[in-house]
């Protein structure tokens, strides 16, 4: 809020000085001092959003496909065959997911599949490397993307150690079912990178992420900084791991093993 206020004041000053007549700030200049911006009343807020995934409950390709479908439908993610594909949420085996093979593992665990998605890292390398701030970190811990600004340099893909990002090598609409688009959400254009956005657009209107909603309780989403939150409760009660902790990115997605 503070941030916005400051921008307002700065802006008002500039307008008064007549420096800003034709600039991007013109909106308020014309519409007068009454204008303001704010949250939706229903908005869900947090200091640090995080997700806990109970892999005992969603541990097969089929169950994870349900989550992926919910996510991809909500965000108009195309289904592109081949190695130039795009995915926000997908399934992978233990070794692929955690890069810490253990021999003689319990068979159930060895065969288990794990839902992978962007970790919304606290020290996100993708944010660090992006030359345009098209990938940026919000105050609530969500690593978001501004597809309007992305130049498609793919530095963030090299930077992300979790393979969470996909590049639109081609026109994504060629691989979308155009009749079944979610009309409340855009598609992307070719030449930009995309990834899971922790459903910011849903949180803004008081809804849980699409995958969480589709998971029948296997995925828990909440504020990591709030000791009373649901995620903190499950974290206290279960043994969880995160992907590649040694790299220090501090993922915000936890896996109950």
């Amino acid at each position, binding site marked *: 809020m503070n*941030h*916005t206020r400051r921008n307002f004041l700065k802006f008002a000053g500039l307008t008064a000085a007549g420096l800003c007549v034709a*600039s*991007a*700030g*013109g*909106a308020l200049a*014309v*519409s*007068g001092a*009454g*204008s*303001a*911006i*704010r*949250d*939706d009343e229903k*908005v869900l807020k947090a200091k640090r959003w995080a997700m806990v995934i109970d892999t005992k409950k969603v541990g097969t390709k089929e169950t994870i496909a349900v989550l992926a479908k919910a996510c991809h439908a909500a965000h*108009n993610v195309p289904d592109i065959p081949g190695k130039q594909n795009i995915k926000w949420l997908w399934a992978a085996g233990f070794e692929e997911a955690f890069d810490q093979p253990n021999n003689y593992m319990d068979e159930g665990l060895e065969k288990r599949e794990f839902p992978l998605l962007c970790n919304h890292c606290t020290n996100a390398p993708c944010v660090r490397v992006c030359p345009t701030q098209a990938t*940026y970190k*919000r*105050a*609530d811990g969500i690593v*978001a993307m*501004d*597809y*309007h600004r992305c130049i498609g340099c793919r530095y963030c893909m090299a930077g992300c150690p979790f393979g969470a990002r996909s590049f639109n090598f081609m026109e994504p*609409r060629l691989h979308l079912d*155009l*009749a079944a*688009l979610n*009309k*409340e*959400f*855009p*598609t*992307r*254009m070719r030449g930009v990178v995309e990834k899971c956005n922790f459903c*910011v657009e849903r949180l*803004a*209107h008081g809804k849980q992420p699409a995958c969480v909603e589709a998971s029948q309780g296997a995925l828990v989403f909440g504020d990591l900084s709030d000791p009373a939150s649901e995620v903190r409760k499950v974290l206290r009660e279960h043994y969880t791991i995160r992907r590649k902790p040694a790299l220090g990115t501090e993922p915000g997605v936890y896996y109950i093993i």
Partner: protein
Amino acid sequence: MKLYNGGKIITGLVIFLGIFLAPLAYNAGKAAYIQPKLKMPENEKECVESKEFMRTKHMQLLDQWRDWALRDGQRMYVNSKGKVFEMSLQKTCMKCHTNKAEFCDKCHNDASVTPYCWDCHVQPEGLKK
């Protein structure tokens, strides 16, 4: 004073001026520009801001909406009359302006601008292959 290569220079200048002024000559005598007729929303009389403002400044408004919604995470816009709108091209603008071809394209085509909003944002008519 003598102008070296005077002939060539002057010919060059004449050709340059000719090309430079060609568009003016081409349009001379044509009817003045007429604002295109837009298909206005039926159920809604007032836009987010005044008509004049929207006509000339909607791009700046959208630009700011984008940054406010995406970067600042503030999704609601309170206009000068105190009315609240969600800052969203697809969920707000296009809910009233339900036809891109009859609305957006009209002026954009006349002004010969092709904003690439629709490369990502889904137009209200829906998309066809």
